[in-house]
């Protein structure tokens, strides 16, 4: 994968440019608090509450952590009384991270876990800048990031924690209910411009995409537009609207009959219609569900990662050990 992610120019960890720019109460954020109450962990959930409720549906079978050496120090027992853990990154995973953080906090009330979104690249950049301990990422590290980490004197450690399907959504009134991968490719490259050509009404197609800082954007481009060849020449049509968050795509899709958009499985809601996707003309169209993603029959699915600096230790280790859901 080749996105040019790396060091974000955000000297102040508290004011990350990207999260700062995210307009709506989309960014679900928690602030570490040093209060002396028992319940130290608070979270503010904005407009995402409905999506949050649908998390279990979005969460797919959890794989075990990759290569976690036994020599890592267990630091929780003799840790200082209040500690904080910053988790940052993929918008797709921010709700999932919240759920983990909340459950983790019940076991370890002395550790404040703060989870923020912003995009996979933002999270990895923050990890390398040292402004977060764990990056949530919906794509694997690219060569540049690995090299940059080496130059700074550490390695990045990826752990697969879940599988995610990327769903393609349209307005509920749209009669189209399935598409092939080839059709999706032509739609998002701007070659098919009207719903009529797909058996829908005679309306223009409005493309909704994420911004370039999104792991979902890059995955969709490489997997659907470039048919798996990450260096291909294909691009999103210039006319594709770049939305600042998955929430913004969901909102516009729920209101506008012309739109087609994509985002992680976790955002499924009855306000949008989820399309079934066929691998090619001869294959059956498969609707994205937990089962089809796990069985790898749904064609657009990917692993989700938690990325850390070096081998995780201390509370980071504790969190990673906690995460896999049985």
């Amino acid at each position: 994968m080749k996105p040019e992610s790396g060091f974000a120019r955000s000297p102040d960890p508290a004011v990350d440019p990207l999260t700062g720019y995210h307009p709506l109460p989309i960014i679900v954020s928690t602030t570490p608090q040093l209060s002396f109450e028992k319940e130290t962990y608070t979270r503010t959930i904005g407009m995402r509450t409905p999506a949050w409720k649908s998390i279990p549906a979005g969460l797919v079978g959890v794989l075990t952590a990759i290569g976690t050496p036994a020599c890592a120090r267990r630091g929780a027992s003799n840790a200082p009384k209040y500690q904080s853990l910053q988790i940052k990154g993929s918008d797709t995973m921010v709700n999932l991270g919240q759920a983990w953080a909340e459950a983790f906090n019940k076991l370890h009330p002395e550790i404040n876990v703060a989870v923020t979104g912003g995009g996979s690249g933002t999270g990895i950049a923050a990890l390398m800048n040292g402004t977060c301990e764990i990056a949530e990422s919906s794509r694997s590290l690219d060569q540049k990031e690995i090299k940059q980490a080496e130059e700074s004197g550490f390695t990045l450690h990826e752990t697969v924690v879940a599988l995610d399907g990327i769903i393609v959504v349209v307005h509920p009134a749209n009669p189209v209910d399935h598409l092939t991968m080839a059709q999706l490719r032509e739609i998002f490259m701007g070659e098919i411009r009207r719903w009529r050509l797909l058996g829908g009404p005679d309306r223009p197609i409005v493309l909704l995409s994420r911004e370039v800082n999104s792991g979902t954007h890059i995955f969709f481009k490489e997997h659907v537009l470039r048919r798996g060849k990450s260096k291909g020449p294909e691009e999103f049509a210039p006319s594709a609207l770049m939305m600042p968050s998955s929430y913004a795509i969901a909102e516009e899709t729920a209101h506008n009959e012309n739109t087609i958009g994509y985002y992680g499985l976790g955002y499924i809601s009855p306000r949008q219609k989820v399309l079934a996707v066929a691998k090619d003309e001869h294959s059956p169209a498969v609707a994205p569900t937990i089962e089809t993603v796990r069985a790898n029959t749904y064609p657009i699915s990917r692993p989700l990662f938690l990325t850390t600096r070096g081998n995780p230790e201390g509370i980071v280790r504790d969190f990673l050990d906690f995460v896999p859901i049985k």
Partner: protein
Amino acid sequence: MSLLPRRIREFVIEKLIFLSGIASIVFVALIFVFLLREGVSVLKTTSLGGFLGGKFWYPISSPAKLGILPLILGSLLVTAGAVLIAVPLGIAAAFYIAEVAPKRWRTPLKSCVEILSAIPSVVLGFLGIMILVPFLRNVLNLPTGLTAFSGSLMLAFMALPTIITISEDAINAVPREYKEGALALGATHWQTLYRVVIHGALPGIIAAAMLGIGRVFGETMAVMMVTGNAAVIPHTLFEPVRTLTATIAAEMGEAAKGSPHYFALFAVGIVLFIISFVINLTADVLLNRGRKR
């Protein structure tokens, strides 16, 4: 003996005032130098013509396509739309508040205008996304409500307080004698307003409009939320556009330091800086010409 400390004191104070005076010049110069230093490196990857005139903006592809023509046109279009809405409305509102409204209404009206300017742009953008965008799509039957026009409307809102406040001050500053003279010659109130007062206040009104334009051009948040951010060359106001400011805001956090994308964003900053500078310079020139007359 008592002279020396006083002299030193005066010397120190003088220099301090001098420093405060040139501080803004120094800051502007430093900002420009910094932008220039980071931004010119974009010319390693693309020619000046290819950067300013290129029609495609795919900053993270390899090789990256770094053409900012759609972004420049997007910014200009949104600004032009906002100016067309805000300038006539703002000037009319200023005249109403300064000359027409009953005296007891003036203070509350002015306060309301000032409150308008205190609304954060994110809040305006939020209202835009929830209310204006769906409304425009339904009423105008557009493919999407996320268009340059939505951005123009939002920005017009944000520029109005600036334009109204400064125009109103300019109108109030017109010497009383002018008005009294006109009325004494038998001109009606309306004739006095549009033949006499407006001429006296013109430099101030132009300055107000220019400051409004400056505000609109540099605004980021509200625009990013409602214009759709598609980097296409726009043909009408009713298409999605991507502005220079929104591009920097959306992509800066992600650009790898030292990559063509990173330098290109700084170069976009230079372009923004230069355009704002030209707007302000025009305002100054117009103002001076107005004064001489």
